[in-house]
């Protein structure tokens, strides 16, 4: 039951975090699977390009342009 998402935008994410996400090969249009979500807007684990990355919920929501 892994959900797949497309990275929509980096809007509202701070500069160093964008750099780090770029470093990890994440770009707009990238596919990412959600491996684990923690309750109460806790961290989110995604998988992209065969690697697992832990993110804060706030950053994750912005990548999906939900916020």
């Amino acid at each position, binding site marked *: 039951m892994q959900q797949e998402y497309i990275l929509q935008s980096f809007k509202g994410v701070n*500069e160093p975090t964008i*750099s780090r996400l770029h470093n990890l090969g994440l770009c707009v249009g990238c596919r990412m699977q959600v491996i684990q979500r923690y309750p109460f807007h*806790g961290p989110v684990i995604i998988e992209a390009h065969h690697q697992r*990355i832990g*993110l804060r919920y706030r950053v994750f929501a912005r990548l999906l342009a939900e916020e």
Partner: protein
Amino acid sequence: MATVALIGNPNTGKMTLFNSLTNKYEYVGNWAGVTVEKKQGQLKDADVTLVDLPGVYSLDPLTKDESVVATYLMQNQPDLILNITNASQLQRNLLLTIEALELARPTVLVLNMVDDLRRTGYDYDLAILQQRLGCAIIETNARSKKGVADVRKAAIEYRQRPTKRLAINYPPMIEQAIRQAEEALVADYHYSATTAHWLAIQFINQNKAIRKYATDKNLQPLLSQQRYYDQQGFADRIFAARQNFIEQTIKAARKPVGNSHDHHLTSRVDRVVTHPVWGPLIFALIFFIMFKLSFDWVGTPLSDMLDGFLSGPVSTTANHLLIQAGALPALRSLVVNGTIAGVGGVLAFIPQIFMLFACISILEDSGYMARAALVTDRLMQLIGLNGKAFIPLIIGFGCNVTGIMAARTIEQPKERLVTTLIMPFMSCSARLPIYSLVVAAFFPRHQALIVLSVYFLGIAVALLVAKCYQVAFHVRQGSVFVIELPEYHLPRPDIIWHGTWDKGKGFIHKAGTIIFAGTVLIWFLSSFGTSGFVTDSTRSFAADLGRWLMPLFRPVGFAHWQVISALFTGILAKEVITSSMMVMFHTSSKAFLIAALGPFMSPAGAYALLVFILLYAPCFATMATIKQETGSTWWMIYSMFSSLGIAYLVAFLTYHIALLIV
């Protein structure tokens, strides 16, 4: 002698490869301007120096540590660059590779962890990769030593590598900007064409280290165009062009091999370990076991044995030899009571510290550490820190020194500094003996409860102070918490040993010097008085100091010179407080001391004393570590005085509130 530089992303097994390539390595001081240790090694049986650069994702630095790599590549001309990559994550590893290849130095690309890659059901056609990237490629699996010999051979044959620059098709506007800047830099500033080209790309790509370099050197061709570059969004377009190149390359070179059993182990372990409910429970269990191992099952018994050996046979033998040699009583006292007792007291911590570091190394090497940081991030955000600060703080309960050293894993310098500064409020195990003495004397019926309340007060103060620093340092701005969760690996003993030794030896080497100096100072103060050398410490300078400071401590409830002098010696090491008190009260029995303390102060004063001991000043070893890790004497002094101030304030408040209640 030839120099080979190792660069690569974090979690690529670079360290493992470095350790298997070299037979000995050393830390040759720090990199210029930052407190990152420079690690160099000698290639086995060859006249080649290997320089291990910090693991980075790109040459554009986010942290001070990362800036080392860009600066190194700009100012040094290594004979060969060994770029270590994680084969199963080649896509993102190639971003750094491109930056290195644009430098046009002889480069060899190492595809490490190929076994992990094949487990995902893919492999790369090396000929295609070599042709597209224009550099030699070697496949390795450093953990099982596969391919290490090939890398060694490549390092020795560095002269045979071509120096071809990788040319990526950037958009015409950018190509033109690069060309113009390059020509001006060559003509006006006498850079070589390749260096100028690389500088121009890095500058346009908003590399912070290079922009600072350009400003320092006043490179007008770049600086005058900076606004134009940024307005046109060149950096994003460079990133897009590189991504495009990487995708094409990978698509062309990737070939399926057999069935994918895509990281079965990692998925299965992660399902439990990062579970919202089981995750935190497992986390707590692992840390409980780690503490038990370090401070109960293995570490402490060994420490006690070492302590017994140092304070028993070693001390007696030294004393005996000195008497035979006819040494002055003062000299004998310096060696036996000062050096052996003081330095020995600190050395006795080594088994505990090494045990703890071994546990941490196992957690790091297996890949669990990143998960632990993730699980605790939410909690730490409340005080403006991130999950990576939680583990060091927990370790601080064992020993502040190890805790501060464990804070190295925090990327953000400000967050690391805050973690370091609040560390002394974590009640380390060395404070326990004096707590138990005081509670036995004053709170015999609620011992555990009182000690627990002291621990929690320490945490509360740490959180409050961290919150203040968060506001003062603007920590939240630019807080980054993006954490890579590496594949799980079975820890390998030699890697654990290397990790443990690397972490622990700093404690022996560097802290040893300041502890020695401190020991001698405290010994001097407690063995000399206005009348010269004294055997009765109640007539020593320390006692005088205690008496002199007495009025200052009246408002906090424990105005007794014996206690104050003992606190002073506690700066050396917290466990010394108890023994100092025994000396000051002329007793060698704990029971007698407990009885003697009773009439000296009220329970309110005693609780204020506990609070003061909890907070008042980091011990010498901790101060030495603060200096070493922050790279500044100022922070060490600041830490001492700020905790002194906080301790006085909180003890004062506690005393007066307690007086109202009791």
